[in-house]
Each structure stands twice: as structure tokens, then as C-alpha cells.
């Protein structure tokens, strides 16, 4: 736990660090799902004044950040202890799973239908075939894995898992799943629900996925979210201004490695079982829900450079994308949020 000088420390669980750097703002951080998670809050000052108010606020923020650890524990496909790993080992039978995993699978099924099948969690075998069967150390430099010779074929038909809501049981119908395309968005959604009663404005930031609530901490016009340049340039490609909106990005800047002598990335097209999104480096979407935002950012990415504009327009999605040449594209629906764009 690292506190800024002069900051007020509050009693919070071990895994979250809470810092009040200014009288009107509070920041809490944790690390989960291979990502640094940060919450910025503008507390309700009347209710949070005093030592007891501070303590309650800190506990609430820590509870919100704890959601990320809960989702990671239940939904990761790495290791051997998660409920999802156990279920994937035998996907052809019923499993009683934790509530978090059950809800995540239900939401994934909904997203599969909403996107017309372009989001499909049945890419677990394809990712393992590409060597992404564990947490790879992308930050250490070039990552090379021994991929299997045969690339797994894509999914066939609609995904139709079965749910028993009364008992919390799930049947995957024979195919293991990966929730990497929706898990973090769901964590942001559920953590935001816990933060909402605590603050008049807050920003929850988890790598590519953000949720910005309220008028922001400065001018009351919203939160300013910079969109990272996937080519590695320090200056962002754009700055967005949002109020009560989720901003999510799918990018291949970091999670790229070499498998079978070829460069691959983690956004796999369920139709082919291979990395998709030809010609694109990143896609950012703005929407009301962070989970659906993450799903749509990946679906748009898989559309590739040639089809992304058409899909975004047809779906009315606010989207910004950067192609391999560094060119920036935006949909019409993004215009209200675009505060600045790099020339």
C-alpha cells in the first residue's frame, strides 16, 4: 500500500490501497485480472466527513475493487483452481458453479445473441492451440510459444449452453469456453454498482475498460479519457469526454506473441479459430454498459479494417479505431464524445 504524502489512509482490506490526495477526490487501486485497477471518486462530502465517514467510504471502495478479485478467481481459465477451469475439463456435463461464474456465463450467452454470434466464448481451444494456455509474460519482451501444428477450427452454429437458475448449474454442451472477452467488462459493471452509492462522481479504470459516472472532478463537464496510441506513440490518438458512459478498448499492442513462427494475438475470430481483425490495431467503443462495450469492441475488431465502419454504422455504435498504418477512424456516433483528436 502506497500513500501519497499528506493523504488520509483509511482502514481497508489488504488488497486495495486507498489514497485521498485532495480533499475532494479519493483514489483507490488494486491489481487483478492481470491489470492495474483504479477507482477515482468525488465523495458525497456531507456524508463522508469525519473519521467514521472516511472509514465507511474506504470500506465501500475496497468492496467495489474486491469484485475484480472475485471475478478473476471464478472466471480465469488459467491455473487449476478456478471454477471455470474445472468446468472446462468436462464441458459435457452439469456443473454447479459460483454465482459470479454463473452470472458471467449468462451474460456471455446474452452477448453472443446480441452480436449475432460474432462474440463467442468457444475460442478456448483455439487460444490453447496458439499457446495462450497460461499467463504469458508479454512485458518481458518477445514471447515465443510452441503452438500445436493444427489450428483449431472455428465454432459451428449458435452457442446454446443450458442453465439451471434455481441451483446455479451450467452445462456447456461439450465445448470449453473463455470469458476473456467479457469478464473484465462484467467486473467493471458490478464494481460500479457498488461505487455508485458512495460518490457523486467516480471513474473506474481497469486497463482497457473504464466506466465514468457523474460530472467528473474538474469542470463538471465529464471525465476526460485518453485513447492510447497502439503504435506505441506516447501522445494519445484522441481524448474523449464522457458522463455516465463506459469506454472500452480492444488492442493487440501488448498481447501479441509468436506461435508456430507467426505473429499472433489474443483476439480470436470464432468463425475461423485464428486471430482476426485484419488491418486493425485497436478499437475503442463508448456505451452505457462496460460489459457490452467490451464485447462490441472485440466484435468490431474482428470485422477488420475493411468492414468496421459499416458494422459500426449499422449498429449505431460510437467507435474509434486505429489501423496498422496508424490512421484513425471514427463512427458518426462517436462525435458527441470526441473532445480532441490528433491531427
Amino acid at each position, binding site marked *: 500500500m502506497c500513500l501519497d504524502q499528506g493523504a488520509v489512509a483509511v482502514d481497508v482490506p489488504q488488497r486495495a490501497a486507498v489514497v485521498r490526495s485532495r480533499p475532494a477526490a479519493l483514489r483507490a487501486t488494486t491489481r487483478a485480472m*492481470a491489470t492495474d485497477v483504479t477507482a*477515482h471518486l468525488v465523495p458525497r462530502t456531507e456524508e463522508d466527513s469525519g473519521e467514521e465517514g472516511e472509514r465507511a467510504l474506504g470500506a465501500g471502495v475496497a468492496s467495489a475493487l474486491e469484485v475484480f478479485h472475485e471475478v478473476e478467481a471464478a472466471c480465469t481459465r488459467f491455473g487449476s483452481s478456478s471454477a471455470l477451469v474445472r468446468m472446462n475439463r468436462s464441458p459435457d456435463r452439469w456443473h454447479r458453479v459460483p454465482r459470479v461464474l454463473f452470472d458471467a456465463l449468462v451474460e456471455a450467452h446474452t452477448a453472443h445473441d446480441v452480436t449475432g454470434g460474432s462474440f463467442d466464448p468457444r475460442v478456448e481451444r483455439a487460444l490453447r492451440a496458439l499457446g495462450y494456455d497460461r499467463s504469458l509474460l508479454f*512485458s518481458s519482451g518477445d514471447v515465443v510459444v510452441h503452438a500445436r501444428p493444427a489450428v483449431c477450427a472455428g465454432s459451428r452454429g449458435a452457442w446454446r449452453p443450458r442453465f439451471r437458475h434455481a441451483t446455479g448449474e451450467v452445462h456447456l454442451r461439450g465445448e470449453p469456453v473463455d470469458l476473456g472477452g467479457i469478464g473484465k467488462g462484467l467486473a467493471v459493471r458490478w464494481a460500479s454498482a457498488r461505487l455508485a452509492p458512495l460518490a457523486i462522481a467516480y471513474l473506474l479504470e481497469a*486497463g*482497457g475498460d473504464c466506466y465514468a459516472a457523474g460530472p*467528473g472532478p474538474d469542470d463538471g463537464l465529464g471525465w476526460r479519457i485518453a485513447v*492510447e496510441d497502439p503504435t506505441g506513440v506516447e501522445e*494519445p490518438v484522441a481524448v474523449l469526454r464522457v458522463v455516465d458512459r463506459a469506454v*472500452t478498448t480492444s488492442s493487440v499492442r501488448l498481447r501479441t506473441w509468436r506461435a508456430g513462427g507467426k505473429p499472433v494475438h489474443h483476439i480470436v475470430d470464432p468463425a475461423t479459430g485464428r486471430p482476426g481483425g485484419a488491418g486493425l490495431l485497436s478499437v475503442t467503443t463508448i456505451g452505457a454498459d462496460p460489459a457490452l462495450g467490451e464485447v462490441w469492441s472485440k466484435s468490431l475488431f474482428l470485422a477488420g479494417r475493411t468492414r468496421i465502419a459499416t458494422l459500426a454504422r449499422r449498429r449505431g455504435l460510437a467507435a474509434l479505431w486505429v489501423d496498422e498504418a496508424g490512421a484513425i477512424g471514427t463512427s458518426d456516433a462517436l462525435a458527441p464524445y470526441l473532445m480532441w483528436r490528433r491531427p
Partner: protein
Amino acid sequence: MAATEAVGRSAEPSTRATLSTTAALFGAAGTLEHAEEGLQPALSLPDELLAARDRVATARARTSRAGTRRRSRHRLGTVALVGSAVLATVAITEGYARTPLPGVANGTASGAAASSTANLSTLGGISRVLAADQKLIASLVKTEGTIASRYASAARAVGASQAAAKGAASGGVAASGAAPSGTSPATSLPPLPALPPVPAVSAPAAHATTGASSVP
């Protein structure tokens, strides 16, 4: 108003006599009031007076027409006289101008060639000066456009007033060395004032960044 009183006392009105009398009494300068009075029953005049008046009017009209014709003839004559004089002058001048100069007409061929060479040389010099002037003008226009665009960029970034203030403050600084390179001394530009630094239109400060997720 004696006339009005006289009109009011008339017992046998006559329209012709009334109109004529009104014209005789008030002339052509009669006002609206007079004209209205003329429509009232008028004074009756003897026939001799009427005949005499008619004769006088006829004589006046004849005299007037004759005068008008005389004046018209006089004007036309003046114009014709002046025009003829102008045409004659032009013809004489042109004829004089086309007359060969005595020196040239009677000089040698070498003298004419020397004169033509001198004229060509002068024309060549003028052409070169004109070309240099055109280059100078083009350079000035280009420089002005550059300055305008840079000022516009600065104004957009920091506000028009601040940009103008900066431009005025640094106007006399670093004047030397501002002339564009490659220009001859004859066409060198006056030193330009140093431009204010153009601030980069950089990204506004953000509260968070969305992009690739951090990795282990």
C-alpha cells in the same frame, strides 16, 4: 385680393374669357390659389381687346419659334466648327509623327543598328528588372501567407489576443538573418520580424487512459 372680389361680382361667366384673363393677370407663375380663382366666373372683355391679345400672342409665338431655330443653327455650327478644328489638328499631328526623322532618314545604316541595339539593351534591362520585381512580389506574398498561417495557428491555440500580444512583443527581436537565402542583394527582402513560438496543439490532460491492458 382685388381679383377675387372682381370674380365674385361677375354676372355672366365665360369660361374662355375667364381662363385668358387669369393667364393675363397672373401670368405663367400663377399659384394653385390663383388657378382655383380662375375657375370662378370671370370678367367679360370686349372683342377688340380679345383680338388684340390674340394677335400679340401669335406674334410672340412666331418670334419664339424663330429664336429657337436661330439658336439651334448657332449650336450646330459651333459644334461643327470645333469638331473640324479637332480633326484637322489630329491629322496634322499624326502626319508630323509619321514623318521620318531627318537624322534617321539621312543617317547611315550602322547608326540605325547602333540605336536599335541600344534600345534592345534597354528593353532587356527593363525586362530583367521586371522579372526581379515579380520574384520579389511572389516572395513577399509567400512570406505573408506563412506569417498569416502561423499567426492563425497561434491564435487558435492560445487565443487571438495572446497571440497578437506575443507577436507585438517579439516584433523587433532577432531581426537579423531573417532574409530568405538565395536572393540577390538587389532583390533581398527587408528583415522580417521574428515569429512568436507556435504552441503545439497537444492533447488535453485526461483523467484516465483506455488502451491495451497492462500485463503481468
